[in-house]
Every structure is written in C-alpha cells, then in structure tokens.
C-alpha cells in the first residue's frame, strides 16, 4: 500500500497590498476504500479561520476570508496519504448488457449531471469521430481505453497555450493543451456515447525515476462510470488508468466544480500565481521537485480580473446594474 507525503504550495503575489479577500479551497483528498488521509495540515498566511463543508458532489470544501491588507497569500497544504491498488473492471458481462445498463442511468441522479453535453463549433466533428472510433463490440471499459488513447495521440501536451477560461472551441482548434484540457475533451467524448464521465482534480505521484506529465502541479483527469464496477479513473494526459498513484482531491462536472484554489479580492487586478507540488515516498526517496520549488502556473488563474481602465470598469458596472427585475 503506497504512502505519499505531498506538499502543495499556492502563492499569490500582488504588486500592491490587497484586502477583503474571500477564498475557496478544494484541497482535501477524498476518503474512501482506496484512499486514506493519514494526516493533513493546511497553513494559510495570516492564519484565517477555515470553514469547511461538503459540496453537492461530496467534495470537502474550505472557505476563508482575509480582510487585512496583504501583498502575498500563501496556502501550504501538507498531506500524508495512503492508497490501495484497485483491481480493474472484469470482462465477464456482455457488452450489450453493459450499454443497456448505462442507458438506464440517463435520467438518474447523479449521472444526469455527468452526461450533460456542451455544444461548441466542433461538436458535430467530435460526434462523428467518437462514433467512428468506438468499435461495435466494445465494452464501455474498452471504449474508455480507446478514447483515452485517441486524446493522448491526437492532442499535444503544451503548457501555457490554454488557461482555465479556454473554451472547448479553442481547445478543439489548437489540438493542444494541458491536463485539464485533455480531461475536458475526454469527458465530452465519453458522454457522447452515453458513458457518464466526470472531471477529477488531484495529484500524480510517480515512482522514483519515472516521469509523468502533470507532476509538480495539481493534475486533472477523468472518471468514467463502468456498470457493475463504479467510477474508473482514466488519465488521458498520460494515457493510463488512474489508480494508486493518482491522489483524488475533488470530482465534478468540469474544472470549475473542482478548482483547487480560487479567490476574489479588492485591489490591484494584476497578480502572480505560483504553484508547487512536491511528493515524497514511504521510503523517503525525495521527489524530483523539492518543496518550495515553484512552477509558475499560468493555467490556473481563477482570480477575478476587472478591466484596469476605470472608464471600462464604470461601463461594466453600469451594464451589470441594468439587470432585469422580474
């Protein structure tokens, strides 16, 4: 049973002091049969009180405010977590039966949320592609593997070309992105053939010499619902099953349901965000990434950014104030 020590640092640096910030963190690993949190400490600069609750998708969410003027905000999460290998789905049920079982989930909670499609310019292309890609006698499990392979082969892993606000249209045109884009496109492909799929955020903990995409920062992948098995983690960025080396923080429909850290503050609209994730192993082999070694994380920029120009800001306020009353 692998045990991992994870240190996840998130640091916001502002050019001038900001105040009245309200923040939300989803940094608490999910606890279930395959993942146990032995210890977790979260320290936040300024020592604000963190209030936690369980959200609609069952994730533990923390929220805190920081009113005093501050020019940096550091969130330091240290986790000791133990995982267990989960056997993979068997192949002992007829494919037709499995697809029928999935059909029954269509109008059931919570699956209905994980089958909702979003429309974008390339929707019809993607639909045709998914139909062509899926082989007739595939089980859902085989379709999952095939689609993951497709995303892995046909999309380039390039950091910095996309952000959390990148739309499906842009990803589709670029045919490139980072883990969240890969996960986004895979969930959509799975939903198109009727496999409930959800977005997962977490950490990837690779062993020793092996390197995998998504290290050093928070990672994202997908989960597909397999009849008689449950949610199967699938990581299209590395084209592998997400098993005992993937630590799950949150699940949801999309990135914004799982966004690990987000906040709103009053003050300068510019800020710099640095994220570092360092993993140590049970035998104390240090990770390639040392604690505190930051990787600038341009893909996570959930802070509200208002137009800098005061005139535009005024016009935006005017526009918003004109919301229709019933």
């Amino acid at each position, binding site marked *: 049973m692998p045990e991992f020590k994870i240190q996840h640092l998130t640091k916001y640096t502002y050019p001038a002091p900001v105040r*009245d*910030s*309200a*923040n*939300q963190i989803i940094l608490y690993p999910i606890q279930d049969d395959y993942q146990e949190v032995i210890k977790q400490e979260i320290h936040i600069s300024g020592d*604000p*009180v963190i*209030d936690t*609750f369980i*959200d*609609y*998708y069952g994730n533990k969410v923390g*929220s*805190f*405010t920081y*009113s005093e003027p501050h020019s940096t905000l550091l969130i330091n999460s240290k986790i000791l977590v133990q995982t267990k290998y989960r056997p993979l789905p068997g192949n002992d049920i007829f494919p037709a039966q499995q697809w029928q079982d999935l059909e029954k989930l269509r*109008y*059931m*909670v919570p699956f*209905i*949320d994980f089958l*909702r499609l979003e429309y974008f310019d390339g929707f019809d292309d993607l639909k045709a592609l998914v139909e062509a890609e899926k082989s007739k006698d595939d089980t859902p499990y085989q379709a999952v593997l095939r689609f993951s392979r497709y995303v892995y082969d046909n999309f380039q892993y390039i950091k910095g070309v996309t952000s959390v606000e990148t739309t499906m249209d842009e990803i589709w045109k670029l045919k490139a992105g980072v883990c969240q884009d890969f996960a986004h496109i895979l969930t959509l492909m799975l939903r198109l053939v009727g496999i409930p799929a959800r977005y997962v955020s977490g950490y990837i903990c690779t062993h020793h010499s092996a390197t995998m995409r998504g290290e050093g920062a928070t990672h994202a992948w997908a989960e597909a619902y397999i009849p008689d098995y449950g949610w199967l983690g699938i990581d299209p960025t590395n084209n592998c099953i997400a098993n005992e080396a993937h630590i799950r923080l949150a699940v949801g429909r999309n990135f914004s349901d799982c966004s690990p850290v*987000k*906040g*709103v*503050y009053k003050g300068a609209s510019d800020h710099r965000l640095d994220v570092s994730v360092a993993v140590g192993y049970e035998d104390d082999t240090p990770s390639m990434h040392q604690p505190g070694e930051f990787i600038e994380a341009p893909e996570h920029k*959930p802070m*509200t950014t*208002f137009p800098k120009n005061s005139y535009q*800001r005024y016009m*935006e*306020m*005017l526009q*918003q*104030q*004109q*919301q*229709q*009353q*019933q």
Partner: protein
Amino acid sequence: MQESAYFSQYNPIKGVWDEMYGENNIRDHYSKVIDYLSRESAEDLARKEELAKRLFMSQGITFTVYSSGEGIEKIFPFDIIPRIITVDEWAFVEKGIKQRLNALNLFLKDVYNNQFIVKDGIVPIDIIYSCPHFLREMYQLEVPYDIYVHIAGIDLIRDHDGTFYVLEDNLRTPSGVSYMLENREITKRLFPDLLPQCCVRSVTEYPNILYKNLLSLSPRQISNPTIVLLSPGIYNSAYFEHTTLARLMGVELVEGRDLVVKNQKVYMKTTVGLQQVDVIYRRVDDDYLDPLVFNPSSILGVAGIMGAYRTGNVAIVNAIGNGVADDKAVYAYVPEMIKYYLNEEPILKNVPTFQLSNIDERQYVFGNINKMVVKKTNGSGGYGMLMGHASTDEEIDDYKKEILKDPRNFIAQPTISLSAAPCYMQGGLHPRRIDLRPYALCGPEGIEIVPGGLTRVALKEGSLVVNSSQGGGSKDTWVLA
C-alpha cells in the same frame, strides 16, 4: 342607474371579459365610480389626469427602459380610473395564491433536499437538472423556517369568461410593489372622498408586514438586528422602488461594495466601522450575488456571502436558487405540485404550456404559431418573446432558428385574451387590456397578501403586452371590503 356620458360612449371589445361592463350594463362594483365620474366635468377629469402626471414627475416615481437609449428614465404611465376587484373575486384569488405559494415553497425545499417529486416522476428530472437556476450550491442548505419565497409577485390574467389564470410565478426578485403603494397615494389625492365611499381596503400595511417578516428571520436573537436592502445600483430600472421600500421600512439601502464578508459574517461599512448585517433583502440576481461562487465578473455582489448564508449567519430574501421554481418550463407542472404536496385541487388555473424541447409539442407549436406566444423559460420583463399573431413571417423564421439552437429554453402558450378595463384617454373611457400582480409575503406566521396589487395596462389599442418595459402603464387596484 344614471346613464353617464362616459358610459354611453364606452365600446367594450368583443369576446373579451370587461371588468366594468357586463350584460349590457355597468357591473355593480363599478357603479359608484362611474356615478362619481359622470358628475365631474370633462375639464375636471383632464385636470386630474394632468395632476397625476405632475405628481409622478415631482416625486420621481420613475422606471428605466434599457432599449430606448435616450433619456431612459421615464415616469410610469398611470391611468386615473381604478381597477376594481369584488370581495368574492379577491377571496378566490387570495386563496388560490396562498395554495400555489405553499406548494412552490414545498417544491423548492424538496428539490434542494430529498427530491421526492422527481423520484416519483411527477416533474421530469431533465427539466430540473437542465435549468440554469437550479443551483447545486443550495443542495441541503438550510434556510430559516424552510421559507424560500418570502416575496412573490404572481401574475394573473382573465380569459374571455372572466376565469383567472396564472401567467407567471415571479419568485426571484419580483418588482412593482412601490407602484402599488404610490398609485394609491395618488388616487387619494385625485379622488379623496371616493375611497371611503366605495369601502376600498388599504394597502399601506405592505412595508410593515415585509419589515416584520424580515425582522423575524434575523439569525441573531437581538432587539435591533441590522436589515439592509441590497440594490444593484442607481442604474437599475427598479432603483426607485429600492429607495422607496428602504425608506418605508426604515432599513439601510446598500450596494454590494458597501458590504464585506469576514469569517462567514456579513458586515456593512459605516462611518463608525463595521456593523454586522443580519438580514438582506436583495434585489440582485443570484448569478451576481457572490463573485466567488457564481459569476466571477460580478461587480455588484459581495465575495463570500454564500459562505455566510450557508453557515446561517445571515438571512437572504428571497432565498438563492428560487429560479428553478419559476422557470417557465417548470411552471407547467405547478398544478401537479399542488396535488402532490397538498393533496388539493388547484384553485387557480395554469395557461396550457407546450415544452419546445419535446419534438411533438414543438411540431404542433410551429404549425400553429399564429395562435401562440413563445417565451424564453428564464426571461422576464417581456423581453425576447414572440407574439405569433402580431409577427411577420421573417420574425417568426428568425425566432424558430433561435428556438432550435436550444429548445429547452423556450415554451409556447396559446394567446390568452386578457380582460379589459376602462381607461381615461382622449377625454373619454376606452377599454384596454390588463393583468394583475398581487404581492404575497411569506413569513413564519404564514402567507399574507395585502388586498390590492399592481394592475398593468397595455395602453396601445389592441395590444396584449402589459410590461412596463414594453410601453405598458398601470392603474390603482381597489379591493372592496
């Protein structure tokens, strides 16, 4: 009764329920008013109409039309002839609205908790989960006294035989109540003796009842909780109403930037420091309320307010997430909700509603579009709707394209011929189409509806659109004792 000059010139619209004129004569409840009017000279009435206009202007009783571009702030056109509702009609309407609101409140509680009604297949799950106002953030969140709809403005219309129908349930930020109050004040000045003579019930209790209800929601058991009215700001169409209600209740009028959240508590910035806020009567849409949780680009909201609401440190009126109950696709199921939750037959009727996401119903609607009104499920204010009988083929084709992009967002209803009431224009009385929006207040002690409401008038001849944003006006609404 005395034959009046005004009455003899009055030409009721064929096939339309007329509030004043029935079976070749003036209905009893209008007779006193018509008697009174016939004693007034044409000059007197013209003078009264002029006085009403000046009073509205001098008191700044205005609203804003967004699309017109110029001037934008307008006085709300007011017709001096009151709309009169009998004792019996009111008793029926009051009973019907209370029943409907009870069911809608139970529905909101259910849909954000156990979802019995969905599991039993009464309301299709797809309609709930595809509604953009079904907020998963509200799931299992406890609201004080299980009240979600504290203020409702349910729109009623009357068909050709006088039957009342519910047109819309407005359960988010219903507006217009200030016009109900102001219209009465103006009438008191125009016809001071008429109100007591006709035994008209008073509406002035409205702000007191609302204040009492807001007070009862305070999470802190203190003698003087802080209540605020949160407005989007001075450019909002209903800003006049926000200021009026705040003044009448004696509560602070604030904007999002006046509030701040600290450790799950909401504070108001004052000249002597922060003051904790207990109850917020908000007139800001859900989506703009908290940039941390909802629309991140909102400048009107208060970051972190959802956390304060969730922990019960502040009460928010109306509750967040009510839009799932007044969605026009969900509206079709309200009669079923009444049967399901209350085991009662619905008192007020629903207008038949076609779901355009259903292919068969869509085909039918497209084939009969001349007899239909097509609306957006989440629209309000009469924006973005199509009146089939009054549209060109081109408009209809464009609208059909719009519908096909996302059919779930549209419903269609057969055109209902609204009832008509006499309006004073061009020196005489002319029938114009009207609706009725009574304001219901729901507090821990139950639902109270002040006897009255806002009667909106489609001032253009032949028009069926009463929305103030679409050139409608209003009348004082009298409920007789």
